[in-house]
């Protein structure tokens, strides 16, 4: 069987909506099928870990928050919690509850944002506009609580910086009701809207064994039947007391990833209500001295995209000796390569968006197609158009062939 080689090269083009950092995937394709994937990341490598070693613990709070704009509370919360363990202090219960509330509100905001982008990937702009319109509700809530729509700077070492008044609590509960009702509506759309089903059902398969072997994390793993969730497996913050159940689907495809995230959003709304109803009294933060004795701690948080790990080592001064951050997207890189193999070029945008990567806007994809050595480089947008159009021509055989499998 002669492997037909054709190299697709994509000129660097701007991307819309430009979401995250860049990524660069090299695909080896045989005609329309993807055989092999190689990746090159690091376009947004800003040298944060080196920078952190030259900043004090308090300054690092605001550095860690800006590693990823969409899961900023996850990063800052995890950093604050790890440094508290390092310094041997514990945040008061009310502070921990408020921190957990912010985590969950941000998960709602991140999942809704992703749902809009996934709809945009398959050319479904009306749903993209509607989902992003309803996402403004949670953005308003977060702005009411913390004063900023993104990068909330709510956490500090030893607790939280702002309290939640009763009147605010009432407004948040009202906002949560609207969110729940809208998310249910979108879940109903995703379940039986034919456009989504054809472009998402059994595409980008990641079997349970592959997910376990390649250590996939977060919703990507839970969509492949792996029952793992740091909030339950390694309880932190107020997750010990908050009742919640972990959503697991086992159809291992992009549709499962969509549904896991939508269900998790509904779960988050329930958790936020619970946290607000039993918010303990007391102050919201404790004292924190500037220097921390020699120590090292591994801190872990379930960010919207998966397990986020912080390893901090202190050396007695007021600056960390070493700050190691492993973002969930780095863990999902290998699984996504597995998903792409065997699929069609036209599936690449939606499969890539499937893991909700922190660099969903793959600005440069280089396809190597062996036989004809033709170079073909496409920007993020050309690939999107190609995939939507390609599906127009081959929609039927693909669907038939897939149902046969």
């Amino acid at each position, binding site marked *: 069987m002669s492997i037909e080689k054709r190299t697709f090269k994509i000129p660097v083009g701007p991307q819309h909506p430009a979401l995250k950092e860049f990524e660069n995937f090299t695909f080896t394709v045989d005609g329309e099928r993807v055989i092999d994937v190689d990746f090159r990341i690091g376009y947004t490598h800003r040298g*944060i870990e080196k920078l952190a070693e030259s900043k004090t613990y308090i300054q690092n709070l605001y550095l860690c928050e800006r590693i990823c704009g969409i899961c*900023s509370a996850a990063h800052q919360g995890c950093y604050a919690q790890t440094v508290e363990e390092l310094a041997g202090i514990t945040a008061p219960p009310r502070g921990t509850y408020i921190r957990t509330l912010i985590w969950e509100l941000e998960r709602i905001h991140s999942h809704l944002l992703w749902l809009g982008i996934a709809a945009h990937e398959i050319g479904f702009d009306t749903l993209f506009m509607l989902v992003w319109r309803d996402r*403004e509700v949670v953005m308003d809530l977060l702005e009411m609580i913390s004063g900023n729509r993104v990068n909330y700077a709510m956490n500090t070492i030893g607790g939280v910086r702002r309290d939640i008044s009763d009147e605010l609590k009432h407004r948040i509960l009202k906002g949560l009701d609207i969110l729940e009702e809208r998310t249910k509506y979108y879940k109903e759309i995703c379940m039986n809207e034919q456009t989504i089903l054809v472009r998402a059902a059994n595409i980008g398969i990641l079997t349970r064994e592959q997910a376990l072997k390649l250590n996939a994390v977060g919703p990507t793993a839970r969509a492949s039947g792996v029952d793992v969730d740091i909030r339950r497996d390694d309880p932190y913050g107020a997750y010990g007391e908050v009742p919640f159940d972990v959503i697991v689907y086992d159809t291992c495809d992009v549709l499962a990833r969509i549904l896991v995230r939508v269900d998790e959003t509904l779960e988050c709304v329930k958790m936020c209500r619970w946290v607000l109803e039993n918010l303990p009294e007391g102050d919201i933060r404790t004292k924190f001295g500037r220097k921390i004795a020699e120590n090292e701690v591994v801190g872990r948080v379930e960010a919207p995209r998966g397990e986020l790990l912080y390893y901090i080592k202190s050396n007695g001064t007021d600056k960390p000796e070493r700050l190691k951050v492993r973002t969930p997207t780095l863990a999902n890189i290998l699984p996504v390569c597995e998903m792409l193999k065997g699929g069609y070029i036209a599936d690449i945008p939606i499969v890539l968006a499937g893991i909700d990567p922190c660099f969903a806007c793959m600005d440069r994809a280089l396809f190597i197609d062996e036989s004809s050595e033709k170079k073909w480089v496409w920007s993020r947008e050309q690939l999107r158009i190609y995939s939507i159009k390609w599906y127009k021509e081959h929609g039927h055989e693909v669907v038939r062939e897939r149902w046969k499998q």
Partner: protein
Amino acid sequence: MAVLSKLVKWARIKSPWILHYNSGGCNACDIEVVAALTPRFDVERFGMLLKGSPRHADVLVVTGPVTRQTKNRLIRIYNQMPDPKFVLAVGTCTITGGVFRGGYGVLGGVDEAIPVDVFVPGCPPKPEAIIHGVVKLLEKLQKS
């Protein structure tokens, strides 16, 4: 001819097409730029369209501290845009490198790579602030 130039100036103010380029930021500004398109802020009221190709765009909206890796791409895109073109630097780390200043992977701001017309501070600036930035740009255009 004065009428013609007035007409052209009016047209330029009324339909600024923007092109968004993410030069390695943390995406907080990017989601705010995209949020400006969605129903609540809807920049299309001002005639603003988000264009995909540099050939079509007038205003280049740059977000993120320009990382070393993306610097020459940014310059290439800036050169591909037809005149008259403008640059809008959105976000504190785009203006001065912000919290990442001093890091080895980051330039100290966009104006080290390309000339900038309007700076929109904020981390991230609200969609209203971004729209205000574009309006400021148009006022500057009005005067020139």
